[in-house]
């Protein structure tokens, strides 16, 4: 008799299989892999250089120093990795809906969101992750942050929680395609661009943007709030502690919206 219940272990096992196979086949296209990794690294290095030039001219921005902002930058790069590696297929959602290819996901006995998202694993994010790690380690050192358990654990919990926000934002943006027939790719690009603001301390923006980046498009949680715990413990706010919970809630909500959209879509398509 087949097992009726399909729990975490079942999905983890299938995901691992798809991932390993996909990695194997990606490696066989080595040029593609190397070029795209180099491409992403160039983008990151360019971002780094603009930073460097900025701080050559202004030693600080509203009380924020070079290494602190660099830390936020590295932090946000690391937090971007999960959404880029594991949730990249959201970018293909609009086309799948447009061509009708999305229907094929509806006929398997597994969770629709899982099936769709698991199809693509984008290895390009790994290069960026490494760049992020180097940036964080470098600025951590320069800032002279103590290598205590509190700081290290706080950092890891912070990065993982921060990564949830971009996942949620991109899920929300992608699921707009279920209801709207055009323009959602622009919406996704716009949302994706917002991540560039995540590397700045929210405090340097004016009041309106502070509120927007905290509650509307919560990119403040992608680096600033969780980083405070490590780089400016004296400025930690309640939002810092809320980061993990808020992140989980948002990802879950975005999943519900995505699934609702998927159900509604299959209903209206002829």
């Amino acid at each position: 008799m087949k097992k009726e219940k399909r729990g975490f272990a079942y999905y983890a096992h299938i995901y691992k299989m798809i991932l390993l196979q996909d990695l194997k086949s990606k490696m066989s296209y080595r040029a593609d892999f190397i070029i795209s990794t180099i491409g992403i690294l160039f983008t990151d290095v360019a971002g780094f250089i603009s930073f460097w030039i900025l701080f050559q001219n202004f030693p600080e921005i509203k009380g924020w120093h070079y290494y602190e902002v660099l830390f936020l930058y590295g932090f946000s790069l690391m937090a971007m990795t999960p959404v880029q590696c594991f949730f990249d297929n959201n970018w293909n959602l609009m086309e799948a809906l447009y061509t009708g290819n999305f229907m094929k996901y509806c006929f398997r006995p597994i969770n629709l969101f899982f099936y769709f998202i698991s199809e693509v694993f984008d290895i390009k994010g790994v290069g960026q992750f490494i760049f992020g790690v180097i940036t964080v380690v470098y600025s951590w050192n320069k800032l002279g942050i103590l290598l205590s358990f509190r700081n290290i654990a706080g950092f890891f919990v912070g990065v993982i929680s921060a990564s949830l926000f971009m996942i949620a934002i991109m899920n929300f943006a992608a699921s707009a395609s279920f209801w709207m027939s055009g323009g959602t790719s622009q919406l996704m690009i716009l949302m994706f661009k917002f991540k560039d603001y995540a590397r700045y301390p929210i405090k340097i923006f004016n009041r309106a943007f502070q509120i927007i980046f905290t509650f509307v498009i919560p990119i403040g949680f992608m680096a600033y709030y969780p980083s405070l715990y490590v780089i400016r413990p004296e400025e930690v706010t309640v939002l810092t502690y809320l980061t993990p919970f808020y992140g989980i809630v948002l990802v879950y909500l975005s999943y519900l919206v995505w699934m609702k959209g998927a159900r509604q879509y299959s209903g209206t398509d002829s």
Partner: protein
Amino acid sequence: MEAIIKMADINKEFKVLKRREGIRGSIRDLFSRDYQILKAVNDVTIDIMPGEMVGYLGPNGAGKSTTIKMMTGVLEPTSGEILVNGRVPYENRTRNAQDIGVVFGQRSQLWWALPVIESFRILKEIYQISDRDFKDNLEYYDALVGASELYHKPVRQMSLGQRTLCDILAAFLHNPSIVFMDEPTIGLDVSMKSKIRELVGRLNKEKGTTIILTTHDMGDVDALCKRIVIIDKGRMIYDNDIEHLRSYFGAYRTIQIQFDRHAEDLDNEVLQQQALEVEAWLRSEFAGSESIAVSMEENWIQILINEEEVHMMDVVNCIQKQRQIADMNLQEISTERVIRKIYEGGIV
């Protein structure tokens, strides 16, 4: 025997927003909730027995895919009763999905970048196929079509024919009781078409799988289906044996004629003109018989008649009196023609 798919008085309605014209209309649309009810499926009742192979036909937009979606549990009917494998499909989509397979002609469901065998292995885990069943099926596939030659090729490097073949094999891998096929031979060349048809026929016979075949290709229907169901504008207009259909139209004949020895050199317009003339002659001679239809096919002028209304020889004589016939051909009505006749006139 109990029916494997039971649909009784199934209706499916969609709410569609009424769109207005122009920019002002679009802006008003943003705020209006002026819905229109669209009946996609109207009082459809079908019973399908285990092991049957049913051709499910209808013009585009007739409601075929809506029906299929209801059978697969993707859509919930507005009203009516539906049971697939004794279960209500939309109440448990995933449980239902475990017992069905789906094949789309041009859309591969396999993992694009992976070799086929790896896709099969992932499917083995998804459907929790036992090692034994998996091995048996792979051996069976090998005996059937020599499938192992394709196993290590990534899907994206395959020809459409190879891909379709693998997609069909993948759909049967978990031994589903029903497989839905949507135009499995679309875009394939003649020899691949017949290969796919043979494969589908054997899978149906040897595995006893119920197959619902949606297609516009009458070759598929002729080769595979005993029973056909035709749906148009959401209503079922035919459900019976294909033999019954042929005997119903048994009195229909197609006469093909050419007035010139080298008709293939003639302009299309000239032929068109000839066809119109022929039609005019026949209309005046046999004013009472409505079945007569004149059309063009390649270089031939084609006349469809019902022998219960007019005799073939009378028709030929009538034309011959007006103009010398150079070449002539007599055919029984093709399934394609029959189906078209049903779509057009609702003869049944």
